[in-house]
C-alpha cells in the first residue's frame, strides 16, 4: 500500500459523469424530495442519511426486505441441525444411557435445540444483511465528494445515477432544484482507485494460505505413518508423574519392586478377627457344625440369606440349588473344558457338610471353586465377611425405576371454546359520542352496555345454575363439580388478576401507547369483588371442613398424615379464609382505586392524577406479585397438597398475562364492531397487544418447560408423582395438546406481523389461546379426580357461566362512563402511536 495511486485526474482526462448529488438540511426535506424523485419514475437512485429517517422507506417506495424469511429458514435449519446432531451422536452412533433416561429423550435435548436455532438465525441475520446490502463495498465515487463526508454526520443526501434510463443531466438538475436542496453537485466516475488488489496483498494471502495448511498436513501425515520415537509431549498432561506404579521397577528397594508386601503378622486396625468360629467357621481346627454364638439365627437372618442367595448363588446354582443356574446352563452349551460345573446343593455331600465349611466355601477360602467373592467381585479377600453381611459389597446396577416418558405433548385438535362474545352490530348510539380536542370518536357504550349486561348476566345465571344442577345430579356431594368449577375459575381468575397486573404495569412504567386501551383493562380488573363472590363455592366447603377438592380441609384426613400435619400451619381452613380475604380485598381495593382515579381524571383532568396512580403502582406491584403467587398456591397447587414447585406462582402468572391480552383484544374488537373507539384504537394498538400475546406464549412455554424439565431430570419421586398423573394415558394426550396447542402452533401462527395486524387472524388466535389457558387449568386441576380426562357438560357450563359473569361485570362498569381516559395527558401520543 502506498500513495502511488493517489488521485491525479488531470493525467487521465475528465472522468465520465456518475450522477447528481443533492444535499439537504433536514429529514423532512429529504423525505419530500424522495417523494418527488419517486413520482418522477427514477429507478437508480438512493438517499444517504446519518440515521434511518422515519418514513423514508415509503417516500422512496422501498419494498419490504426478504431478510425475515431468510432468517426463518436459517433458524429452522439450526433446529434441524441440533436435533440431528444430538440424535446421531448420543442416540444412534454411540447410544449413551444417562441417569436412566431413554437413549433419545427430548427434554434434555431442548436447550441445545434452542441455542443452535438462535445461533444460526442470528449469524444469518448479520450475513444476510451484509449480502443484501452489497457490503463490504470499499470504494465509491461518492467518497471523493467532500460534502458527502457529512452523510454520516448531520446532512441528508440524494443521489441519482447517470445510468438511470430517465437521467438527463440538465432536466434532472432542474427537477432536483424544485426540491429545495442546499446544493447540487455533479459526481464523476472514480478513476483514481485501482480495481485490482495490490500484488503485495495477493502474495501475502497466498503465503498465509499455504502456511496455514502446513500444521494440518503434518497432523494428517502423523496419523497415517509410523514412528519409533515417542510422541512429542507439548503438554505434560499428567503423563509423567512423580509416583510409583505397581508393576514398575523401583531402585529404592533391594528387590527392585515398587509393590511392597506388608510385613508378616501385620494386622490392620480392627481386623484382627480372632474369633475363628465367627470369621472362619472353624472350631478347634475343625469346621464348626454350629453357628457361632454371636450370630443370631432369626427370621431376619433367614430372609437376608435368602435374598443374598437369590443375588449371588442362583446364577450358577439355580433357584432350586440344583446346579442348573443360567451361567451353568450357558457354560454347558458352550462345552468349555475350563468350566467346573457348580455342585448340586441338594446332594447329601453338601447337606452333610459342616456349617463352617459351607461358610468357608462361600467366603472363597476353600479349594472349592464356588467363589462368588472372586467370580462376582474379582477380588480375593484374605478374610471373609461375617455371615450377616453380603459376601461382597458389589454395588449392583440398581434396577431402574419406571420413569416418566419423555415429556411432551401431542398435537391434537383442540376445540376452541369461545367466549360468549356477542357479535351482531347495532346502529351507533349517537348520544354516546363525545369529542376530545383535536379528534372525535364514539367513546361511550350507552345503552349497548345495558343490553350486553342483561344478556351476559342471563347467560351466566343460566349456565352456572345448569352446571350446579348437573353437579348435584352426579350424586357425589359436588366433588366432581367442584373440580370442574375450579378449572373454570382459574381462567376467570387469570383474566381478572391479569387485568389488574396489566393496569398496574401501565401505570408503573408510564406507558403512553396503551392509554386508549387502559380503561378497558381497568374495567376488567374491577371484576375483582365479583370474582371474590364467585370463589365462595370453593371457599365455603373448606370452611365447613368438607374436602371436596382440598384434602387438607378435613381434620380427620390431616391427622396421622405426616406431610399434611407438617403443612397444617399453612393449609388450614381458618388461615385459608384469611388469605382469601386478603387477596380479594386487596385486589378489590386496588382495582377500585385505579378505576376511580382514572374516572376522576376524565372529569377534572387534574395533572396530579396520573402521577398519583403511578406512585401507588410500585408498592401495588409488590403486593400483587405476592397475592397472585399465594392465591395460585392455595387454589391450584394445594389441590395436590403433597406436590410443590417454587415456580408455580410464575407459571400461573404467565396464564394471567396471556389472558389479559386476549381479553383486551377481544373486548376492543367487540367495541369497534359496535362502532365505539373506531378511530382511537388502530391496527398499531392491536399489533402491540398481539406482540405481547406472542411474547407471553413463549414465556409460558419457557416457564412450563423449565418446571417440567427440572422435575423430570432430577426424578425425585415426591415431585414426579404429580407429572406422572399427567403424562400417561389420556392426560398424556392433554399434555401433548398443551405443548403443541399452547406453544408450537401459536408460535408459528403469531410470528408474522401481518397476522397480528389483521383483526380476523388475531381474533382467531385470541380464541385459540384462551381455550388453551382453559385446557391448561383443566390439566392442572382435574387429574386430581379423573383418572382419565373426562370433560363433562357441567365443566363447560361453569366456564361459560364464569366468563359471562365477567363480561356482565365489565358491561355494567362500561356503561357508566367513557371507554377511554379522555383527559389523560398522554392520550395524544397513544392516539398517534405507531410501531416501528
Amino acid at each position: 500500500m502506498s500513495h502511488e495511486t493517489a488521485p491525479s485526474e488531470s493525467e487521465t482526462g475528465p472522468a465520465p459523469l456518475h450522477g447528481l448529488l443533492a444535499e439537504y438540511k433536514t429529514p423532512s426535506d429529504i423525505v419530500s424530495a424522495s417523494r418527488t424523485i419517486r413520482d418522477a419514475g427514477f429507478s437508480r437512485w438512493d438517499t444517504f442519511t446519518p440515521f434511518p429517517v422515519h418514513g423514508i422507506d415509503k417516500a422512496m417506495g422501498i419494498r419490504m426486505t426478504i431478510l425475515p424469511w431468510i432468517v426463518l429458514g436459517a433458524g429452522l435449519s439450526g433446529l434441524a441441525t441440533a436435533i440431528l446432531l444430538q440424535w446421531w451422536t448420543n442416540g444412534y452412533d454411540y447410544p449413551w444411557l444417562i441417569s436412566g433416561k431413554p437413549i433419545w429423550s427430548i427434554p434434555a435435548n431442548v436447550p441445545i435445540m434452542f441455542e443452535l436455532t438462535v445461533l444460526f438465525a442470528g449469524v444469518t441475520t448479520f450475513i444476510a444483511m451484509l449480502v443484501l446490502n452489497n457490503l463490504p463495498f470499499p470504494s465509491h465515487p461518492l467518497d471523493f465528494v467532500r460534502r458527502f463526508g457529512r452523510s454520516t454526520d448531520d446532512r441528508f443526501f440524494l443521489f441519482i445515477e447517470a445510468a438511470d434510463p430517465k437521467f438527463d443531466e440538465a432536466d434532472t438538475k432542474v427537477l432536483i432544484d424544485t426540491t429545495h436542496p442546499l446544493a447540487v453537485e455533479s459526481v464523476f466516475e472514480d478513476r483514481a482507485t485501482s480495481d485490482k488488489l495490490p500484488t503485495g496483498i495477493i502474495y501475502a494471502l497466498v503465503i498465509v494460505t499455504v502456511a496455514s495448511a502446513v500444521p494440518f498436513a503434518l497432523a494428517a501425515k502423523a496419523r497415517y505413518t509410523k514412528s519409533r520415537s515417542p510422541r512429542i509431549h507439548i503438554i505434560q498432561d499428567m503423563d509423567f508423574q512423580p509416583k510409583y506404579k505397581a508393576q514398575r521397577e523401583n531402585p529404592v528397594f533391594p528387590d527392585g519392586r515398587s509393590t511392597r508386601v506388608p510385613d508378616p503378622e501385620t494386622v490392620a486396625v480392627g481386623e484382627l478377627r480372632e474369633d475363628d468360629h465367627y470369621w472362619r467357621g472353624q472350631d478347634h481346627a475343625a469346621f464348626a457344625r454350629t453357628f457361632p454364638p454371636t450370630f443370631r439365627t432369626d427370621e431376619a437372618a433367614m430372609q437376608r440369606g435368602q435374598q443374598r442367595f437369590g443375588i449371588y448363588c442362583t446364577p450358577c446354582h439355580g433357584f432350586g440349588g440344583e446346579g442348573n443356574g443360567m451361567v451353568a446352563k450357558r457354560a454347558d452349551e458352550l462345552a468349555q473344558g475350563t468350566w467346573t460345573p457348580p455342585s448340586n446343593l441338594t446332594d447329601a455331600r453338601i447337606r452333610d457338610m459342616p456349617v463352617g465349611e459351607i461358610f468357608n466355601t462361600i467366603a472363597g477360602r476353600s479349594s472349592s471353586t464356588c467363589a462368588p467373592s472372586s467370580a462376582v467381585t474379582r477380588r480375593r479377600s484374605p478374610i471373609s465377611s461375617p455371615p450377616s453381611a453380603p459376601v461382597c459389597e458389589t454395588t449392583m446396577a440398581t434396577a431402574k425405576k419406571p420413569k416418566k416418558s419423555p415429556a411432551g405433548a401431542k398435537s391434537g385438535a383442540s376445540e376452541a371454546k369461545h367466549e360468549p362474545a356477542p357479535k351482531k352490530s347495532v346502529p351507533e348510539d349517537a348520544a354516546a359520542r363525545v369529542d376530545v380536542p383535536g379528534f372525535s370518536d364514539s367513546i361511550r357504550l350507552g345503552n349497548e352496555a345495558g343490553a350486553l349486561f342483561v344478556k351476559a348476566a342471563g347467560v351466566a345465571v343460566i349456565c352456572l345454575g345448569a352446571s350446579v344442577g348437573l353437579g348435584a345430579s352426579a350424586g357425589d356431594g359436588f366433588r366432581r363439580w367442584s373440580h370442574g368449577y375450579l378449572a373454570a375459575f382459574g381462567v376467570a381468575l387469570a383474566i381478572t388478576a391479569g387485568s389488574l397486573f396489566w393496569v398496574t404495569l401501565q401505570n408503573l412504567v408510564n406507558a403512553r401507547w396503551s392509554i386508549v386501551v387502559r380503561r378497558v383493562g381497568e374495567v376488567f380488573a374491577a371484576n375483582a369483588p365479583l370474582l371474590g363472590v364467585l370463589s365462595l363455592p370453593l371457599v365455603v366447603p373448606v370452611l365447613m371442613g368438607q374436602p371436596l377438592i382440598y384434602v387438607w380441609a378435613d381434620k380427620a384426613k390431616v391427622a396421622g398424615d405426616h406431610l399434611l400435619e407438617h403443612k397444617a400451619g399453612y393449609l388450614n381452613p381458618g388461615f385459608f379464609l384469611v388469605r382469601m380475604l386478603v387477596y380479594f380485598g386487596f385486589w378489590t381495593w386496588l382495582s377500585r382505586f385505579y378505576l376511580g382515579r382514572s374516572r376522576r381524571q376524565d372529569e377534572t383532568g387534574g395533572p396530579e392524577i396520573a402521577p398519583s396512580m403511578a406512585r401507588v403502582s410500585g408498592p401495588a406491584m409488590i403486593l400483587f406479585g405476592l397475592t397472585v403467587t399465594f392465591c395460585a398456591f392455595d387454589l391450584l397447587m394445594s389441590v395436590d397438597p403433597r406436590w410443590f414447585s417454587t415456580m408455580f406462582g410464575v407459571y400461573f402468572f404467565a396464564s394471567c398475562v396471556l389472558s389479559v391480552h386476549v381479553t383486551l383484544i377481544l373486548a376492543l374488537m367487540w367495541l369497534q364492531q359496535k362502532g365505539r373507539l373506531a378511530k382511537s384504537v388502530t391496527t398499531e394498538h392491536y399489533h402491540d397487544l398481539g406482540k405481547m400475546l406472542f411474547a407471553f406464549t413463549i414465556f409460558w412455554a419457557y416457564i412450563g418447560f423449565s418446571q417440567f424439565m427440572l422435575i423430570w431430570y432430577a426424578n425425585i419421586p415426591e415431585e414426579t408423582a404429580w407429572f406422572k398423573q399427567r403424562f400417561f394415558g389420556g392426560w398424556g394426550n392433554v399434555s401433548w395438546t398443551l405443548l403443541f396447542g399452547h406453544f408450537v402452533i401459536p408460535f408459528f401462527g403469531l410470528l408474522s406481523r401481518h397476522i397480528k395486524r389483521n383483526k380476523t387472524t388475531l381474533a382467531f388466535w385470541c380464541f385459540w389461546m384462551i381455550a388453551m389457558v382453559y385446557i391448561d387449568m383443566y390439566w392442572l386441576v382435574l387429574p386430581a379426580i379423573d383418572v382419565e380426562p373426562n370433560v363433562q357438560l357441567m365443566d363447560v357450563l361453569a366456564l361459560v357461566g364464569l366468563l359471562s359473569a365477567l363480561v356482565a361485570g365489565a358491561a355494567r362498569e362500561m356503561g357508566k362512563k367513557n371507554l377511554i381516559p379522555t383527559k389523560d395527558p398522554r392520550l395524544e401520543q397513544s392516539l398517534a402511536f405507531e410501531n416501528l
Partner: protein
Amino acid sequence: MAAISDHNPFVTPPVGDNAFARITDNVSRIAEIERPPRAWYIAFACALTILTVFLGSISWAVWTGIGVWGNMMPVAWGFPIVNFVFWIGIGHAGTLISAILFLLRQSWRTAINRFAEAMTIFAVMCAGVFPGIHIGRPWLPYYMMPIPNQMDMWPQFRSPLEWDIFAVSTYATISIVFWYMGMIPDFATFRDRATTFGRRFGYGLVAMGWRGSSRQWHRYERAYLILAALATPLVLSVHSVVSFDFATAQLPGWHTTIFPPYFVAGAIFGGFGMVVTLAVPARQFFGLKRIIQIKHLELMNKVLIATSLLVGYAYGMEFFIAWYSGNSYEGFTFINRAFGPYAWAYWAMISCNVLFPQLHWFKAIRTSPVATLLIGMLINVGMWFERFVIICTSLARDFLPSSWGYFIPTKFDYLTLGGSFGLFFTLFLLFCRYLPMVAMAEVKAFHPAAHAHGHAPPDGKPGEHHAHAAAGV
C-alpha cells in the same frame, strides 16, 4: 471489486452546525483526541497491573494444576464457578438494554446501550476463563465440542454443563454480532471524520463501506430488530441454562424449579449494577453528562429496584417452599444458609441485594450519581455473594453429615477473582478510547429534529415523547 481507497480528500473533518453534528462531535471527539484525560491513563495503568496479576495467577494455576485453588471435596466448584456465574450475569444487562429495551421502545436506552453491549462481551470473556481452567486441562476444551474423531467420542448432550458450552458460546457470538452491527454506521462516521491515513484505513475497514444509503438502512433496521428479537429469548436462555447446572441436580438448595427465571432476574439485576458502576465514572471523565443524563441513571436505578424485588421474591419463595415441601433436607439447607457457618455470606447477600437497593425508592438517592455508584457497587458484591451462597452452602452441607465440609479459598482464588476485573477494565478502557462509546446514529434517530413527517410536533416544540428521548443536546 475495488481496492480500499487510501485517498483522503479531507484536511479537517467536516464541522457541522446543528444538533446532529453536536452529537457526532460529542461522541467522536473522545476517540479522536490525541491524549485522553489523565484519569484514563491512571485507570488504564491500574487495569493493566491487575490484568498482569490475573495472567500470572492463571498461568500458575495452569502450570501447577488447579490444586492451587481452595476447591476441595465436597465444595469442588468453589470460586471458579462462582466467578463464572457472576460474570455471565454481568453481561446480561447489556443484552437487556440493547435488545429487550429496544423491543419495548425504551428510547432512553440509546444513551447507554453501546457501552452496555461492550460490557456484555467483556464480561462473557471474563466468565469463559473460569470454567475453561476449572476443567483441569485447559488445553483440552475441544473435547466439549462435537468434533468427529476415531474414538466415536461425542459430547454428552444431556449434561447441563454441555448446554452451558452451547449457550455461552452462542451468547458470545450473537452479542458480538449485535454489537458490531450496531457500530458499523458509527465506524463510518469515524472514517469520514478521520484526518490520518491510519484512522481512515482502520475505521474504513471495519465500516465495510457503509455510506448510510436508505435502502441499506431499511435492511439494517429490519436486521437489528430481528437480532433484538433473537437476543431476548437468548439472554433468558443463557442464565436459565446456567441455573440448570444447579437445578437439575438433586442437591438441597439447588433443585428448585424457580431457578431459571430467578437466575435471569438476578443476572439482569447484577448487570445493571455494573452498568451504573461504569456509567457514573464514564460520564464524569469523558464529558458525556449531556448524553448519559441523571434521568438515565434514575431510570436504571428504577430497574434495579424492580429486579431487586424479583430476586427478593425468589429468595422468599425458596424459603417458603423449603418449609412447605416438608422435605427435611431442603428445610435444613435454608436454615443452614441463614444461620449456619455461611450466615455471614447469606446476610451479605440479603442486605446488598434486597435491602440497600430499596434506598432507591427515595428520589434524592436515585438521582445522586454518588449514591448510584455506591449502591451499584454493593449490588455487584451482593450478586457475587448470591452465587457463593448457592454454590458453597449447598455443597458444603449435603445429605450426609459425614461428607460435610467448609470451603476455604486460597490466595490464588482471590488473585484470580480480583484479576478478572483487570481483564474486564482493560478491555473496557480500550473500548472507551478507540470505539464509538455511544450509538450516535441511534441517538440522532431519536432526536426531536429527526422526525420528518406525519404527526411530528410543531417546529421547535418537541412533544414530551421526543423530549424524553432526546439526548445529547
